[in-house]
């Protein structure tokens, strides 16, 4: 048992390492993904909030001043970078659709762990670099940020990332039957854009939507960690976030295991 855990651990570190090594092979692509994309998103969000405050002719919205919203926009772009999976979900779908999955399922490892470790490895290396952008911006513009809360916020966001991967795994299982399903990813991620709180803080929503949407696990991706770091959310809500993600992880992983088994039994080993 001890040995098998050590093997599992070594193998998954190697997968995380693979993600880092293969992404660093294409330096410009990596640089744009880690720096240019978050800079662009942050710029757009900040401009949007400037426009909102200017147009509304008010100093506060929902009890918070402009600096709070600028800070939210800044950190939301950073956390949303962690909490979203486009590239690896597309790859997982493509592996099944094109049959390149053949080389993975005949090896003593699981498809789920292989991609989860790669996703975590890649997010880790991009997070370290992307973090430079909001830290410098918050310092220059004196935006409200509670740095001591950052570690817990990052932990919740990475924990939520496991749920994001589980959802990706469920989506890719559909490729066993439908082959090309990348439109699912686009539709799903657009929905998450709102549900995570990336577009705007979820506490701006009217009731009864507000409490219900915050109770969903998706708020743990952006709204809760960003709210925690910018002072909109307390520790109690953060703990609720951990509980919500845990419950959904258990349910969706059971569902995923079932779908995977069904999908593989109908798989025809495409292309070889």
């Amino acid at each position, binding site marked *: 048992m001890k040995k098998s855990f050590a*093997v599992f651990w*070594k*193998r998954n*570190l*190697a*997968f995380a*390492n*693979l993600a880092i*090594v*293969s992404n660093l*092979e*294409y330096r410009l692509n990596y640089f744009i993904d880690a720096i240019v994309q978050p800079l662009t998103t942050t710029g757009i969000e900040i401009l949007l909030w400037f426009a909102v405050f200017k147009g509304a002719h008010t100093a506060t919205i929902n009890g918070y001043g402009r600096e709070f919203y600028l800070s939210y926009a800044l950190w939301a772009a950073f956390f949303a970078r962690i909490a979203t999976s486009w590239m690896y979900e597309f790859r997982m779908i493509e592996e099944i659709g094109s*049959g*390149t999955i*053949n*080389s993975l*399922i*005949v*090896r*003593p*490892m699981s498809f789920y762990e292989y991609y989860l470790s790669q996703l975590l490895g890649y997010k880790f290396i991009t997070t370290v670099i992307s973090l430079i952008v909001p830290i410098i911006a918050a310092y220059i513009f004196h935006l409200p940020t509670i740095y001591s809360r950052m570690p817990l916020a990052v932990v919740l966001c990475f924990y939520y990332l496991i749920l994001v991967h589980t959802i990706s795994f469920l989506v890719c299982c559909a490729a066993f039957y439908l082959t090309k399903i990348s439109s699912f990813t686009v539709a799903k991620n657009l929905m998450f854009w709102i549900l995570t709180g990336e577009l705007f803080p979820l506490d701006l929503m009217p009731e009864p939507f507000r409490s219900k949407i915050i109770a969903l696990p998706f708020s743990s991706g952006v709204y809760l960690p960003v709210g925690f770091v910018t002072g909109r959310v307390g520790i109690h809500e953060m703990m609720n976030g951990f509980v919500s993600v845990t419950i959904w992880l258990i349910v969706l992983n059971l569902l995923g295991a079932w779908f995977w088994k069904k999908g*593989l*039994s*109908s*798989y*025809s*080993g495409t*292309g*070889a």
Partner: protein
Amino acid sequence: MNIVIETSDLTREYKTYQKPEGLANSLKGIFKREYTSKIALDKTNLKIESGKIIGLVGANGAGKTTLLKILSGLVTPTNGDAKVLGFRPWERKYEFLRQISILLGQKNQLWWDISPVDSYALLAKIYDLDSTVARKRVNDLSEMLQCSHVLNTQLRRLSLGERMKMEIIGALLHEPRILFLDEPTIGLDIVAQENIRNFLAGYVREKEPTVILTSHYMDDIATLADRLLLISKGNIVYQGTVNEFVTNSNSELAQDEKVDFEEVIRRFLETESRIR
């Protein structure tokens, strides 16, 4: 006699969407689609001994790759049963997967964006191999295949022949007990084919794995195979040695006519294509 692969009534059926020509039919297909069934493998019964090289020969679409895919755990059969090293392959138990390897000549199995040495280091972790032992094995195999100079080059930048050598090293790194080789020399020039054939012959003599080999190059089969399995429309139609097969075929010919293995297979495949 140590049987390592055994199948009983192994059957696989595929369903395929038939799309009639034209835009109107594409629109119709949104609401209703017609599927046809094809039996790729039909009630196949096999027993394969340990340490033998089996040459699996048949026309395109005869069921060779389907049989290989089922025995390696890639595909689940529609009916029937199979045991490979005592495991049901499609259950994909780790203990089973650690002892087999499949090389699909038409697919890359190493990682495209990284160098082969990085791929082998990853494979060593996946198969839980000691890194020093794995590195030594890579060095030995690459020397035998004369490809040590490209081990550090990104896979995507290698020629087809070099890539195939890298794939072979990847497939043999964990010293599998069962090796499935699906057209390992496809697309290679005559010299490269011969090199790989000689390498495989030497490797098999030394390590004695059980090998199932499919190839459209009859030299591969004639040089390497201990036994021949001839497959036609999902059915095994001949099991025996290459020599017996040639002798039997020659005995059916006119007295002054003698043909070699390649010619017998060519005639068999021609008959096949006429019957289809």
